[in-house]
């Protein structure tokens, strides 16, 4: 086997476990689908599947926020206000 790159593992994944949060939408939309593929109970009048999809849509930004928070904690992903905008 030839050596892997000296850079090590793929960029962006090294020591960034918070990125696993980005898989949350896949869980919400896909993994649990057999459980939520139903009309009842209705929530706020919405058939359950449509309610669930709405919930998953609204939770997607939250999952990205959690990933981003992990990056912030590592001192990355800082606000670009510090590094200056465009010329």
């Amino acid at each position: 086997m030839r050596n892997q790159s000296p850079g090590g593992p793929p960029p962006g994944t090294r020591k960034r476990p918070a990125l696993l949060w980005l898989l949350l939408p896949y869980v919400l939309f896909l993994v649990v689908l057999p459980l939520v593929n139903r009309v009842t109970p209705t929530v706020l009048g919405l058939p359950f599947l449509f309610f669930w999809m709405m919930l998953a849509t609204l939770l997607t930004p939250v999952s990205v926020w959690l990933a981003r928070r992990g990056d912030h904690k590592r001192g990355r992903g800082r606000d670009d206000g510090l590094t200056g905008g465009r010329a």
Partner: protein
Amino acid sequence: MNATVATAIFAAFMVLTVVLGLLAVRGRGSGGGLTEWSVGGRSLGTVFIWVLMAGESYTSFSYLGAAGWGYNFGAPVLYVLAYMSCGYAIGYVVGPMLWAYARRHGLVGITDIVAHRYRRPWLGAAVAVLATVCLLPYIQLQITGMGVVVSTISYGTISLNWAYFIGFAVTTGFVVVSGLRGSAWVSVLKDVLVIATLGFLALYVPLHYFGGYGPFLDRIVAEKPQWLTFPGHASGGLGQSWFLTTTLINSLTVVIFPTTVAGYLGARNADVLRRNAMYLPFYNVLLFVPMLLGLAALFVVPGLTGARSNLALFKLVVDSLPAWAVGVIGVAAALSSIVPMAVFMLVIGTMWGRSVLGAVPRLTSRQKLWSQVVVVVAGALALVLTYVAPNTLVRLSLISYEGMAQLVPMLLLGLVWRRLTMYAAVSGLVAGFTLVCVLVFGGHDPVWGVNAGIVGLAVNVAVALAVTWLGPRERGDDRPDTEVLALEDEFPRAGAAVSGRD
């Protein structure tokens, strides 16, 4: 009378669109070169990127197809929502990675990235041709989508054929001059109108026809339960496994889709993209509106079949609203064709100007000019095909997304894994793409209840791995990994130093 009001409003907004698109580059002269035109000089901030990327993903399909799918099938239409949401989430990683790579090496699109990664200009040109074949049908879809909307909201005053031409003319009118920046400016107008009109329709239609949301939803649940779960109503195999595989593959494809990448590369810095990965999914909430209105149309205008079901939403609009409101909603839908069409044409132009014509030594000094020429040619080609052979591109559109998906290993795997050889990436691409064509044109999509594209992608990856391990080694490429691969995405020291001007 009605027709005059609605048509006048439409006409005024079309003029405003071109003016706005052109104003975007006022005072910037004709300088700046290809980077300025193709990716806005890599200078767009969070708001513009949000507006642009939301604008280009919310196409005429959202108004027509989403309502039509809701009307015909019900639940399967939710795949749009699912893959866009998942795609935005993984864009958190992919966006900054592609942005940093492109900026470091002065690249303007995926063909450019491929050519740099594998150090083969011809490969960039080949990918450009392949991607163009996949993108042209989308331009036609926007042109025809615009056509039916405009002829409907003008109460038939503007014929389909004229409406097609107007779509092409307005789009070309600004994108040739102002490129990505102009598209972003027009997107502002578009997004404001889309959000306002869909927000209004979401409230108004249930109230007008059903006396409120409660009765509307109760009636759907009571009378149309078949529409409300997978596999939906008479959807022909669009069940759970289809939804799962389609969401999976489309969410991977959307992050490398050339138009998405154009948005990524236009960002001022990587953090703009990280923030947008968080904000963009909110736009998807709007997709519920045409889906629900498609269901509402089941009760109001029953019996729409075939292509006419795509007008489910507009039948309600024309039926229930005064002419001026019909005009405004029509403008929002027309702009939902124009903005994506502009970016599709821009991307095709960029790919050819840079990677195909730009690879010819004699032409390489005028890349921006050639790109602009190709924009007009590509748009005109789609327009002419719409007139004379509409079914050609419709058939091609069947493989557009699933075909584009086959570029994922070459591009994304290639940027993180040095061992992936050019031979392997190309073999995988050819195998995957061929299989998709065979399955789709053979009428086997979905195949065994599974999206045909994901079958192609599995074969694609398997072939790529096999050829990497067993096939010929890459020789003579002695560039360091830092030159070839994406680095752990770095933060720009100063977003100011925009390198890679040409």
